[in-house]
């Protein structure tokens, strides 16, 4: 394939018959970009020869806002990072604060955290598969199947925390409110139905010829590049790297549950799609175990001061396996009420580092599919 530099040199030399290089600005209002995201794409015919992502349309300096408030103030703001997965965002942040200030978490709270986080993962993956198929032109149907299930999970979140998407539910040292036995029963009934949904969903898509043709061999991400570029989450595991922070760090109580980490082989879009389906099944396993083992007891550490928390000067980096990858929070305390430095490690932004590498040489229509398989949410990319 001709490189851009070479083509530019030949254009400057006045060579004829090169064909045209077309510069297309995909976005910020392109439906496939899942928000306000732009790609400056250079095309030679239909082939992509250069692609530069452009961010910042949704930038509101989340980190500065959090540095201006107390530790507690940042929790509702984290909901708005990856606005599909507020529960896991909360968890990443409170984990960092707990590391910084050495706060213990009661057992029951740990179990409820696992339940809400895994429900979040499930609805995120179902939604992603729906969106990916939507990007491929399967208008509506798979997305509606996914959203039907997502609605039920959001209903559960609503009855637990009062909000469907902006849950603001976790606190350092525990949780905001306890769940009732009726809620647990509802969750149990929902989770019992989830495997059937995954079966149905997969049967609908698995052997689909168009899906196979569009995704297999598209956007291959080699293993070494994935590691070096800091790609995390299902995308990394689709490239065959066994790295799941739930297994590596055992944060919370993940060492108590039995689940497997699905791994891909080819690192193409199809593997990334399959990763989500397989992870949904593992998630159901974790959920079943967590609901079986949940003890009674308090949900907040009694000694923790939510308002007016003043951790000792120092710093801490806490990270969790969010549905999109490694979500980390880096906090520096100077001993005052608010964090001196508050930094989010946004998985979906860093997963975009290798977007150009995956797209080069593909048709422009494949860019949409490759981007869809990365799973980005612009609230988190731009912060």
């Amino acid at each position: 394939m001709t490189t851009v530099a070479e083509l530019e040199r030949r254009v400057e030399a006045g060579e004829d018959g090169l064909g045209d290089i077309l510069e297309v600005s995909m976005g910020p209002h392109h439906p496939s970009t899942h928000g306000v995201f732009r790609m400056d794409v250079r095309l030679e015919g239909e082939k992509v020869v250069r692609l530069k992502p452009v961010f910042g349309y949704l930038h509101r300096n989340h980190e500065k806002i959090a540095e201006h408030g107390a530790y507690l103030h940042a929790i509702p703001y984290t909901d708005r990072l990856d606005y599909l997965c507020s529960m896991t965002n909360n968890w990443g942040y409170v984990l960092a604060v707990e590391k910084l200030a050495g706060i213990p978490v009661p057992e029951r709270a740990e179990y409820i955290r696992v339940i809400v986080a895994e429900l979040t993962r499930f609805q995120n993956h179902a939604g992603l598969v729906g969106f990916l198929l939507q990007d491929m032109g399967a208008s509506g149907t798979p997305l509606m199947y996914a959203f039907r299930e997502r609605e039920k999970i959001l209903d559960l979140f609503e009855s637990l925390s009062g909000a469907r998407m902006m849950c603001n539910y976790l606190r350092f040292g525990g949780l905001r409110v306890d769940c009732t036995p009726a809620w647990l029963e509802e969750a149990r009934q929902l989770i019992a139905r989830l495997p059937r949904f995954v079966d149905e969903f997969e049967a609908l898509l698995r052997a689909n010829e168009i899906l196979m043709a569009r995704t297999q061999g598209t956007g291959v991400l080699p293993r070494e590049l994935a590691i070096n570029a800091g790609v995390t989450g299902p995308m990394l595991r689709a490239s065959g790297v066994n790295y799941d922070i739930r297994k590596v760090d055992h944060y919370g109580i993940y060492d108590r549950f039995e689940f497997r980490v699905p791994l891909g082989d080819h690192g193409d879009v199809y593997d990334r799609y399959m990763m989500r389906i397989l992870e949904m099944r593992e998630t159901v396993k974790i959920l079943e175990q967590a609901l079986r083992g949940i003890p009674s007891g308090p949900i907040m550490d009694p000694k923790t001061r939510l308002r007016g928390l003043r951790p000792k000067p120092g710093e801490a980096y806490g990270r969790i396996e969010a549905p999109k990858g490694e979500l980390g929070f880096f906090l520096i305390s100077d001993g005052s009420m608010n964090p001196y430095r508050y930094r989010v490690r946004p998985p979906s932004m860093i997963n975009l580092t290798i977007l150009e590498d995956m797209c080069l040489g593909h048709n422009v229509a494949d860019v949409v599919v490759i981007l869809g398989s990365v799973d980005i949410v612009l609230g988190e990319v731009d912060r």
Partner: protein
Amino acid sequence: MSALPTAEELKAQIEAAVSGAVVTVIPNGSLSAQHSLLLDHEHARAVALFLRDHPDLRLDYCSLVTGVDWLDTELTEKIKVKKMVAGPDGAETEQEVEETRKTKVPGYLEAVYHLFSMEKKHGPVVLRLRTANRTDRTRVPSLTPVWRSCEFQEREAFDLYGIVFDGHPDLRRILMWEGFEDYPMRKDYVPPADDILMEARP
């Protein structure tokens, strides 16, 4: 998960392997006890390569890169000095008086790197690079050639803090728009009084 050497052990290993490298251990007072290593600019990339490729460390994954702004501070100390002091009767006598002396400690910008190992499944190792000051000497070497994951995050530190990364392949603003001049994450940043959106209106 294999055990990772402590910060002091790492310092010794690095200084033995990379000749001339100056590594300082920065202790972390919080309960997380994630101590960090301050590197000198000249050998930073060699040290990074050593950490990435050493068979026992294999820190192949750079998770987080961020900037931190440390303002100029004033160190206030009380010292005793001998001085001629006029007494109530007008005669000057030598007396010891207390004076406060203020010394200015220049601030700096800091780039912080959190390293993990996907192969050995350990971490984090925290690296720090510091600029000479906050105004005109804000350069540090880029580690993007070692870890590709630094690419966007170093751009972000450049965009929001004004840290210039030498050797970065594509150092442009990433979240703010081109033509924006200040660095919004700095501690002394003052947002413009006027609504910028009004200015942009034709």
